[in-house]
């Protein structure tokens, strides 16, 4: 068994309750931080830990925290991003449902480090039952003196609120989230200014993912160096992976960064291999936004090295032959999967979720969906495939927020690695309507 940090106690009965959580050492980081450490010392430990944001971008958390502006007399906020709406990603849900106090502990310790006296958890609206779980846990924490005025008898006070989103993926983008939290339409803001300078109610704000904040207690308890010793290179610590698709054991796994992709897919400790003895065709390794890779490239890099579950290894080769760790939504597709159908589904999603503020994303996502619909139904032309490529390239990098990129990358990578399949859809429409699933033997793994 590899290292478990976040999910160490996940199977302890009653771990969702305050009593059991505390009996397993829960909230000790709050005690340690508030009573023995300065704010700067905590930020320093988080820097040393090498912890990187688990929401998708992988930005170093300690560095982000050190950017927080601290003007005299102005409130600061910590906002937890629990909007988790990226297709293929469901790790935050698992964490909040099973061990809600870990997030709350992380938020108290982190809020103290940042000097925030009011903090928010912005939860995806569809997670309504989780909102209840969090509210109960927060309630219990208040009663135990872990939240509210003078926490554990110190002069630090913190109020923690849960806010439900209303069903928009874009509200996971941090500035759209802040707009929504302020009660406005969830449109991403034009940056700069960044939230660390002017965020919630124009005050300095840090937005962090659930998993990021849940890693803070262990860093405070054991020190940044301890955390940095886990994992590989600049991918320190452990990462939750939401594994889904054609595998024997879908679910949420905590991995130590640096295990091989092959191990993750095929070992019984994790995915347990491809379902029904089928062959692996492709993987979307980090949530729907990241480039899809065919079996050979997800298992080994273009240089022939084994690909690892880490920020660097998954990105090896750039977009030509690599992908991204993203939020860790690991979607496995077997040989029966139609890349075109799958891409159509993704494209439909991004079209539906575009906020519509900027023209390339608003119009481009809708256009790509229409073209893919045409191709998948067997009415496409070769020119349509070229046009798709052209459209995605004109969305990428030209939009206000990264949703435009997130919509473009799946299209680009599917065409890059599976162009033959698109051409087949165009050239042999009759065969598509007969078989529901598309077979492309050339791209199958031999593993």
């Amino acid at each position: 068994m590899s290292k478990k940090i976040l999910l160490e106690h996940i199977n302890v009965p009653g771990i969702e309750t305050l009593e059991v959580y505390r009996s397993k050492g829960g909230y000790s980081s709050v005690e340690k931080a508030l009573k023995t450490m300065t704010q700067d010392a905590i930020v320093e430990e988080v820097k040393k830990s090498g912890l990187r944001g688990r929401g998708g971008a992988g930005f170093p958390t300690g560095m982000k925290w050190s950017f927080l502006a601290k003007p005299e007399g102005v409130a600061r906020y910590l906002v937890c991003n629990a909007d988790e709406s990226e297709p293929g990603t469901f790790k935050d849900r698992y964490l909040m449902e099973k061990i809600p106090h870990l997030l709350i502990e992380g938020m108290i310790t982190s809020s103290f480090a940042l000097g925030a006296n009011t903090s928010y958890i912005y939860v995806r609206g569809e997670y309504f039952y989780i909102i209840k779980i969090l509210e109960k846990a927060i309630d219990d924490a208040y009663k135990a003196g872990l939240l509210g005025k003078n926490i554990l008898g110190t002069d630090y006070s913190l109020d923690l609120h849960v806010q439900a989103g209303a069903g928009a993926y874009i509200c996971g983008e941090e500035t759209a989230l802040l707009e929504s939290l302020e009660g406005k339409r969830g449109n991403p803001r034009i940056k700069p200014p960044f939230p660390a300078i002017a965020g919630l109610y124009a005050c300095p704000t840090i937005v962090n993912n659930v998993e990021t904040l849940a890693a803070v207690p262990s860093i405070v308890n054991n020190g940044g160096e301890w955390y940095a010793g886990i994992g590989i290179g600049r991918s320190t610590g452990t990462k939750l992976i939401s594994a889904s698709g054609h595998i024997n054991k879908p679910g949420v796994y905590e991995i130590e960064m640096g295990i091989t992709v092959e191990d993750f897919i095929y070992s019984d400790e994790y995915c347990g291999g491809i379902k029904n003895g089928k062959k692996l065709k492709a993987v979307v390794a980090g949530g729907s936004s990241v480039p899809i890779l065919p079996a050979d490239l997800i298992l080994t890099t273009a240089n022939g090295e084994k690909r690892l579950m880490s920020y660097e290894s998954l990105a090896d080769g750039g977009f030509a032959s690599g992908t991204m760790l993203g939020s860790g939504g690991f979607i496995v597709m077997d040989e029966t999967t139609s890349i075109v159908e799958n891409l159509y589904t993704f494209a439909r999603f991004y079209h539906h979720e575009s906020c519509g503020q900027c023209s390339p994303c608003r119009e481009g996502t809708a256009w790509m969906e229409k073209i893919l619909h045409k191709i998948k139904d067997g009415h496409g032309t070769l020119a349509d495939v070229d046009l798709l490529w052209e459209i995605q390239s004109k969305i990428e990098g030209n939009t206000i927020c990264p949703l435009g990129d997130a919509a473009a990358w799946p299209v680009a990578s599917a065409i890059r690695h599976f162009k033959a399949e698109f051409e087949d859809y165009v050239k042999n429409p009759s065969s598509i309507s007969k078989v529901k699933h598309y077979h492309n033997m050339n791209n199958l793994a031999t593993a």
Partner: protein
Amino acid sequence: MANITIDGQTIEVADGTTILQAARMIGPEVAPPTMCYYSKLKTSGGYCRTCLVEVSKGSEKDPRPMPKLVASCRTAVMDGMEVKNITSAKVIEARKSVVEFLLINHPLDCPICDQAGECHLQDLGYEHGSAKTRTDFERRTFEKIDIGPKIQLHMTRCILCFRCVKVAEQITDGRVHGVMNRGDVSEISTYIEQAIDNDFSGNIIDVCPVGALTDKTFRFKSRVWFTKPMNAHRNCDKCSGKAVIWYKGDDVARVTGRKDQWGEVEEFICNTCRFDKKLTSDWTIEGPKEISHQSVISANHYPANMVKPRELTLNNIKPITLIAGEIK
């Protein structure tokens, strides 16, 4: 102060100036086109992406180029910054795509659109777009709605520039409209149909770059190029009273704000001036409004010698730009 070079031309500007403002100071030959930015409206810009430019040198301190094209209307200059607008192939390409994106759902009903002849989307398409469309999908359509007695909203033509929303927020006493829904079905709407009716609501017509918001008192009265614009003023207790009155024959066909070189009004005017003062006797006429010779509006109106030779040499002047100022 910061020194910034745009397409090889250097200018010194105050800190906090945007690339776009600096480019406009240099002149129309380097100024990127804009569809959503409006100098008189705070927080405008950033949406349409027509003003994207390439920053080939970030600043003197950090000379690295910026990895992506940036919206010039929302990016502040840095000392030593070097920007490529029309000298960047990437910018030209991206701009062409933005035009395409803006047009794939546009009805292209210019022949029956009141805005034709003074439409920024027409100019943009003409200068930066391509002659052919690459889509044959059905275009998005909406019902026309009357928002109040004087203004019609033809959402099908809207490019979602947010200018009218910002006008309502910043210069009227209550915003009752905004953007509903999201993505490509976003629409400007009052949600539950209601009138946008206050003393300054008419300005949403002037800021609308396309024919989505039109003046019902002028609808279908005339093509703009058959009207003659005159600078005029009146004593008004609500606004400056400085406007342009557009004659069709001897009748005042419509009244608008005075637009500058960039097609943006100099001052917002009130609805009384705009909608209710349609007699010559209501106004003190100052003289003809200078119109860029390239504008279709100027056709046949003024003697050829009014065209300044300088303008003739600049082929980058937007054809339908109204130039404010006295005629010499």
